[in-house]
């Protein structure tokens, strides 16, 4: 059938001529190509010491955010866990006591908040689902580890550091 795109190319297979059958000219040309790469700058990034630049919408490790007064924003509504396609997020909610008003913004908060980094696919649906703007995937690359249990990150690793008091 005639192609409409005009992109069709009929390949002709010609038998090799004498110079091609000698292989040597082609080999010398190839050796020249590889040698030109020998002196090129390598594109390797030595990872633990150097890091590549990430794009602004890069999704890395999660962090649980604080509000402008330094209180945790998360109210343990569970929408992130519900939206998570990999079921990586679990949490246990607790009720805020009156004296903890400076720690948690809402009356309900997450006493335990765990993300299994081996399950997480870094899709970013949790940050989209969150009504309190409490979770963002703005961290670094999740580091490697030896044991599976060490990949379950609790609040100690996820909550961002307390605000600096001015």
């Amino acid at each position, binding site marked *: 059938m005639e192609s409409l795109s005009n992109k069709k190319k009929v390949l002709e297979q010609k038998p090799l001529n004498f110079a091609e*059958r*000698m292989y040597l000219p082609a080999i010398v040309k*190839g050796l020249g190509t*590889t040698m030109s*790469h020998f002196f090129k*700058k*390598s*594109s*390797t990034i*030595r990872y633990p010491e150097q890091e590549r630049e990430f794009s602004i919408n890069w999704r890395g490790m999660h962090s649980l955010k604080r509000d402008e007064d330094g209180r945790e924003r998360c109210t343990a509504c569970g929408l992130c866990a519900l939206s998570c396609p990999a079921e990586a997020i679990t949490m246990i909610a607790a009720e805020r006591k009156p004296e903890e008003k400076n720690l948690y913004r809402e009356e309900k908060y997450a006493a335990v908040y765990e993300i299994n980094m081996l399950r997480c696919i870094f899709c970013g649906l949790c940050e989209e689902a969150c009504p309190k703007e409490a979770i963002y995937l703005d961290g670094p690359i999740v580091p490697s580890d030896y044991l599976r249990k060490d990949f379950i990150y609790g609040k100690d690793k996820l909550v961002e550091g307390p605000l600096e008091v001015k």
Partner: protein
Amino acid sequence: MDINFVIEKFLLVSILFAISLLIAMYSTYAERKVAAFLQDRLGPDRAGPFGILQPLADGVKMFMKEEITPSNSNKWLFMAGPGLAMLCACIGTAVIPWGQDLAIGGRVIPLQVTDINVGVLYLFGVVSLGVYGVMIGGWASNNKYSLLSAIRAASQNISYEIAMGLSIIALLLMTNSLSLKEIVLQQHGGNWNVLYQPLGFIIFMICSFAETNRAPFDLPECETELIGGYHTEYSSMKLGFYLFAEYINMFVSSAVMATLYFGGYNYPGMDWVATQLGPIAAPLVGTGVLFLKIFAFIFFFMWVRWTIPRFRYDQLMNLGWKTLIPLAIANIIITGIVIAVVKF
């Protein structure tokens, strides 16, 4: 027998053995570095500065790995294979002249283990024995892939040995000697054989690529078709021996090429250097020059490996039988005619 003679030879053999192993070890490192540089990468750089301890780490890994002997293999031959490969790789260095005679305290010490008058034939014998390591290993594994690979290795080596031998005959017509020492002495200064035998050298080099099972003729270890080739069933240091033997072979054939065609330890202006440096330092400079040539050849082996894709089996056989052998015969005829014309 003179006890000094025994000590000299023993020392020379030990040093040569150590150097062969050291160069083979660092060839693995150089191979990975060269591959990396040709592909715009960095290569191993974590073990020690610039990764120079990488071969040690690899060696430790090889020794520590679990050793598996397949239950249906022929146990004795399975052990003999890597040993034979290693042995044949190591004994080739014995006849190569590594430098001019050293004169220390009135004694003349030749930097050659033995100057037998059939040195070239000895080398060919060792090279042809080399295929037995591969064949025995492939046969003893009792694995179809290994067997296929062993058959391939055998037919490849036998085919290319013919062209190699024929390319050497043209050289021997010129030198009138089979002794490597004599051949090197004839190339004194810059009078290298490659200037008279360029075609013979190219044929010899292509054949030594095939004899050492290096790319583009590494069909015996063709991963895509034969898994690991003849060493599919090998593990631990037995596998290490096979890989190591390949690098020692590369070192030896580089040394042979440098000796036969590139003047061995000879370099232009060596007489002037000898008058400046005296009888001990000047031969050592020559040895250094020989090693430089060898390293250049080893680099070339690696450069080719990371440039040219593997030949197909029929292409390999066509090249060997239909191209190299007729070319080598034509080379002999031309050389013979030229020698006859020049003499009379």
